[in-house]
């Protein structure tokens, strides 16, 4: 009936799940992202005394194919990311000529581009 935890629920959370300083558990945080091209006022600074574990977005990337899902399938954004990673993997060993460019070149028309 109420969004807040009951006393019993709070006690359980406090006992089992709450991370306290000195527990030896680092708080997981996402890496900060900021715009290069816009003045960005969104930088947040963690207190230097706080133990944090910055999660890596790149360390575990094996993204050529989607991992198994359960009840919720992968989003368009996820599939987009996977397809780009796949493309990068295929281009990684190219030197000089670019296969993407060669494939797209026949479709280029000057009249399509606003000079």
């Amino acid at each position: 009936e109420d969004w807040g935890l009951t006393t019993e629920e709070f006690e359980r959370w406090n006992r089992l799940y709450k991370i306290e300083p000195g527990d030896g558990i680092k708080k997981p945080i996402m890496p900060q992202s900021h715009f290069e091209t816009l003045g960005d006022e969104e930088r947040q600074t963690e207190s230097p005394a706080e133990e944090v574990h910055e999660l890596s977005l790149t360390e575990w990337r094996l993204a050529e194919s989607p991992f198994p899902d359960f009840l919720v399938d992968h989003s368009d954004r996820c599939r987009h990311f996977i397809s780009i990673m796949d493309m990068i993997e295929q281009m990684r060993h190219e030197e000089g000529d670019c296969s993407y460019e060669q494939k797209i070149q026949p479709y280029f028309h000057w009249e399509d581009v606003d000079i």
Partner: protein
Amino acid sequence: VREAAARGSRQAQTEDLTQVDVEHVEKVLPQL
């Protein structure tokens, strides 16, 4: 496009390189 190019440039510069390669785009892709 400009943001992707700028972040790729930044990544290449961090590695003391004068060319943005596809690996640099890959590294900035998740946050982008």
